[in-house]
């Protein structure tokens, strides 16, 4: 292979690197500068609403990992199930969102937060009241357009590109 173009290609490459040197870097300083994540984000926790849940177990059946366990008892007075314990092992959960999609009563939401690392595997298991929605555990708009509408709009890299400066 010869140097057909006697080095011009190399110089052209160097001009591109130089233009990038003077271009605004595409970076965000994560802990200090937090961008808005997607409204439909599937954070690594599950949010369960006790009122809507009827204990039908569809979510436990569709979960490919078998991370959801429900124990219910019969409530003969109002002739419906009473949910004793609703436990999600977020260690097994792969955040695929199939349970949220399958729930016929919209009782399940995906979490919006994603910084939930734990030191011990046991802490990953959440049950009953720990699963309810709260300010620290906001619900994400995955499969819930009404919640998604209220969440802040996602900052897209496509809009943030400061290439207009050239």
């Amino acid at each position, binding site marked *: 292979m010869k140097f057909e173009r*006697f080095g011009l290609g190399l110089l052209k*490459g160097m001009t591109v690197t130089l233009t990038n*040197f003077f271009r605004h870097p595409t*970076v965000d300083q994560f802990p200090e500068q937090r961008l808005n994540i997607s409204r439909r984000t599937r954070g690594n926790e599950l949010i369960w609403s006790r009122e809507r849940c009827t204990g039908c177990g569809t979510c436990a059946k569709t979960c490919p990992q078998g991370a959801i366990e429900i124990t219910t008892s019969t409530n003969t007075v109002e002739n419906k199930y009473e949910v004793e314990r609703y436990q999600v092992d977020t260690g097994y959960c792969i955040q695929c969102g199939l349970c949220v999609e399958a729930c016929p009563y919209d009782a399940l939401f995906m979490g919006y937060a994603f910084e939930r690392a734990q030191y011990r595997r046991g802490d990953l298991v959440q049950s009953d009241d720990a699963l309810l929605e709260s300010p620290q555990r906001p619900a994400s708009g995955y499969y819930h357009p009404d919640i998604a509408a209220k969440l802040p709009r996602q900052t897209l890299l496509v809009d943030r590109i400061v290439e207009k400066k050239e």
Partner: protein
Amino acid sequence: MTWWPGNYWWHWLFFTVVLIGFVLVMVLMVIYVERRALGRMQSRLGPNRTGPFGLFQPVADAVKILLKENIVPDKADKLVHWLAPVIAFAPVVLIFAVIPFQNGALLADLNIGILFIIAVSSVTTIGVFMAGWGSSNKYSLLGAMRNVAAVVSYEMPLALSVVATVLVAGTMSLNGIVAQQTIPNILLQPLGFLIFFAAGCAEINRSPFDLMEADQELVAGFHTEYSGMKFAMFYLVEYAEAVAIAAIITTLFLSGWKGPGLPPWLWFIIKIFVVFFLMVWTRATFPRVRIDQLMAFAWKFLFPLALINLFITAGQVLIWPDGLPWYVIFINFAIAGVLILFGSKLFKLGWGRSEV
């Protein structure tokens, strides 16, 4: 001979301390410049968390490396493994002994200054090969063999391009070369500069010729099995050599400390950083050359060009014995262009597949 601060011993003491301090501080600053400039060229920021604008990142690196455990592979050749970084590092600091920071401000104004540099700078290869052999690891042996082959074949064009500048300057002492350079040699010797820059980069395995520790292929080349203090020495060698080559280029081609306004030694340091930025720039842009292409590039492209450049300069020096006039610049640039054009046409970069 009047020694600058009093008698000879004060002069010697002052300059050794200044030189060692200069090399270490320059290495730290150069590491910082490289990581920031490389970052910005890759549309990212580079280190900015340790200290204001990430200024303490090199210090943090050094502390981290020094605190790391010093692992020696058990089948390694202990003595060779331990000695290699020392032999690799010593010559690099020696090079700075003859480099003038200011008119007359150098440790030893040898009248064979540039010959001393060429001789001393090839000792590091022994250290590198000892590292490759000492750590009894196939990758590092491959890296070390590549380094020996590359340095041997790039000594020739390096020396020839230096001889051309010595012809123009008339003296071999670096102080004399800089003093004589009214027109910076880069204009008088464009081809000489290009050859020296390419051969210099290959010698210290930077930019397109960094085959010695090609991290994609050979994991980390000759210093794969090094960690802790010894790895810090090799890290120091790599950047100190880069500063050394930049310093030699400034003295030989960019008329060292000469410059309007600012104090001369500051000009010297600014020019070092400019040349180093050029190295970082090439490092960010070019892919790596293969080992046989590296050899072919040295022997079939740089070496003939350096020879022709030497003959042309010799002719010019004969025609204008008392310093080359300014219009020679255009002639030399034209010659350089023509030579590169023909060189790249006739020369085949390495051969392909060897029949197996």
